[in-house]
């Protein structure tokens, strides 16, 4: 899908590692923000890419491990399909925290692209 995003970039584009979910229904680290400068940067989720060959499942992206808090609604992942969400399809949710992820089942592969805001 082509992007119609016309607002100038506010920050730096970064990607998470490819995370393979280690345990079902258990939040784990997805993207650790840049926080060792004078001030920590904030993070906007821009793109999500997930691959699921284990079972139909849900994908939740949020912050925190205990408790885990969604920053966007749950995404349904169809079995044996790759799933992509580009920034046109993702609310511009800016958070001052690391991103975490959870799915119903283990073995789902997830990678996100974020925009980090701050100097």
């Amino acid at each position: 899908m082509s992007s119609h995003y016309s607002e100038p970039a506010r920050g730096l584009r970064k990607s998470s590692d490819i995370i393979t979910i280690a345990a079902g229904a258990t939040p784990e680290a997805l993207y650790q923000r840049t926080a060792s400068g004078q001030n920590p940067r904030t993070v906007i989720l821009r793109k999500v890419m997930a691959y699921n060959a284990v079972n139909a499942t849900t994908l939740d992206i949020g912050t925190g491990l205990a408790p885990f808090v969604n920053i966007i609604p749950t995404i349904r992942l169809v079995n044996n399909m790759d799933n992509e969400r580009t920034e046109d399809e993702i609310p511009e949710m800016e958070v001052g925290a690391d991103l975490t992820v959870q799915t119903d089942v283990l073995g789902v592969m997830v990678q996100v692209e974020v925009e980090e805001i701050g100097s």
Partner: protein
Amino acid sequence: MPELYPFKPGPIERIVLPDQIVGVWVNKLYKFYRVVYIEGIPHSDPLEMDFGALAAAATTGITQLALLEMPNYEFGQFRGFVIDDIAASLWQGRSDGRHVLMNRNGRLTRDTDRRDPCGHTTEFYVHEDDYAYMDVLNPTAYALTQTRVAFFGFRYVLEDALDKYGKKYKWNPGKPDHNEPPAWTRVPATSHL
């Protein structure tokens, strides 16, 4: 006559023309020179300083920018920007931080050249062996394999500036031997004020 001066916003320009007089601020006084030659130093990979691999949240030691060393009777005018996601601090004199406020020093980050694309706020000057130094912070949560800062600008070849009697101009305000050129451009080559 073009309007030329240090820290000029926009694409980098020479701060003087050949045959004009500069006063280079060194060791708390101005040394006066006549510019005899100017050469452009384009941004290119020989002008990139790579501080090497750096762990998450780590800072390098203060490292001389050996690539910006100037010979006698020359000074350089440089602007810089970082290539990797780092925060670079400039020092002139190992203990004199540049871009300095009362309580903070500005740094070069990936954000700097987005907000200041021409880099005029990063401009600095290196005169002879008054070396420039940098340290580099990795603010990210992951290790970096390269930590690069790039520079470009101009170099100025100098000769002693003499008055009409063949005597060197001398900065010594309030004293009888103070002998200041009628027109000259200030070059802030060190931060030690």
